[in-house]
């Protein structure tokens, strides 16, 4: 009988504690918003050191299952398990420079028509209302690139919700959010690269009838603008800026 025992590898203790805690969270034994037992209690229950417990909790935090609050009422609190979990998967891929904008757009091109088809099958008054409000908002003035993008993605998110398949909804919402982030960064950079007043000199020269100055001013502007674009295209930095 003794030889059926498996020696305990200290390095697996953390993983085992992490798996058991994760299992309790996923099975709803510890619910959203609830606090995990203290480090000391957990270390008693699992019969492991507090260091092991702390490492396991750090692992849960890194994978998005708990958040740590500091202070006297602090501790590790269970986060909601929702479709947002899918987003970090894509974000990491993107920051690992493994995704191009083209790939993102290809996937959207393939999946979103299907989502629109499914959404139309599930339409009801509530959704009609939401869609109409989103459309009306698109025509309102916007106060920042972010605001504009929010207004323009609203319809896509509503359709995703309507499609009735939560996996489609979660994946496409994650991809749209990522897409949104990239575009936002691009827009901000472009706006930075094209300040107001850059046309002043050109227009003044034209109005004054100074053809040579107009030509020069426009050449300068075009060349500045071109270099902003080329810099953007080459730089990997713009991918990170909005982080």
């Amino acid at each position: 009988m003794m030889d059926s025992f498996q020696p305990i590898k200290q390095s697996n203790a953390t993983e085992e504690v992490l798996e058991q805690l994760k299992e309790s969270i996923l099975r709803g034994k510890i619910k959203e918003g609830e606090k995990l037992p203290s480090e000391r209690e957990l270390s008693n229950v699992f019969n492991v050191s507090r260091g092991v417990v702390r490492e396991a909790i750090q692992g849960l935090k890194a994978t998005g299952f708990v958040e740590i609050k500091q202070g006297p009422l602090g501790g590790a609190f269970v986060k909601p398990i929702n479709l947002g979990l899918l987003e970090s998967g894509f974000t990491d891929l993107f920051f690992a420079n493994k995704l191009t904008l083209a790939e993102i757009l290809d996937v959207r091109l393939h999946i979103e028509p299907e989502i629109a088809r499914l959404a139309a099958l599930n339409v009801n008054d509530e959704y009609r209302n939401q869609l109409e409000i989103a459309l009306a908002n698109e025509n309102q003035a916007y106060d920042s690139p972010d605001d504009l993008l929010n207004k323009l993605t609203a319809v896509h998110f509503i359709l995703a919700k309507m499609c009735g398949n939560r996996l489609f909804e979660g994946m496409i919402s994650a991809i749209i959010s990522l897409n949104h982030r990239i575009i936002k960064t691009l827009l901000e950079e472009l706006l930075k690269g094209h300040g107001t007043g850059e046309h002043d000199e050109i227009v003044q020269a034209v109005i004054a009838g100074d053809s040579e100055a107009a030509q020069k001013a426009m050449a300068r502007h075009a060349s500045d603008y071109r270099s902003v674009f080329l810099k953007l295209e080459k730089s990997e930095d713009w991918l990170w800026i909005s982080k």
Partner: protein
Amino acid sequence: MYDFKPIDKSYAAEDVFNQLKQAILSGDLKKEDKLPSERELSKLFNVSRNVVREAIRGLQASVFIDIKCGPFGGAFVRENSGNLLESGISALYISNKLTISEVGKVRQFIEPQIARLATLNVNDDYRRRLEIALEQENQPVASIDDYMQKLTAVHLILAQMCDNEIFKTMLSALISLTHQIIKDLPPAQVYSLHRAGEHDHIVASVVLGDPEGAEKSMKRHGNCFGEAFIKTGNASSDQSGRN
């Protein structure tokens, strides 16, 4: 050496985690690189070795690194293959936020497109790999795991061929969840889910460079296996009372 910054003590482990993660994502630390030792990291960040260990566990839990034991052991950077998406999808399924049918439908929808894109990139190397995978399917199987691995090989090669990292990541996450679900079924049921030769037409079309044919035969396969999977999976999760 790595351009790390000093640490705010209250979030020390988190801060170390984030900086190491950033170094991996940005490619400063590459696949199979060994992280500096605990002792070195604790010097670099000016924190205790416990803090470093917590951060490393976080990286392990979010599948950025593997820990190897022994004299040549240490923390090694993994290929970041989108495992966070995999663990996210699996968590949603276990916590009843996704049904088998939702998972099955998404697979049925994206795989024909993957097969079509794969065909556009076919070359001799891929042809050979697909043919070997088909041959393997007809070899005797040693276990359920072995069986599932043999039957997934073609799908994974096609995912690689399609040259879109998002599709590839999605599909490997979905395949791994499919395995997880199927593994709990009685073996007789598992073996009856997937008939021999179901991939023949798909591979034939891909090898011939016929994207429409590949798409169509994958769709047929999806309807066949997919529906069986959804039906069997649902029946068994009703029985086991996953609710």
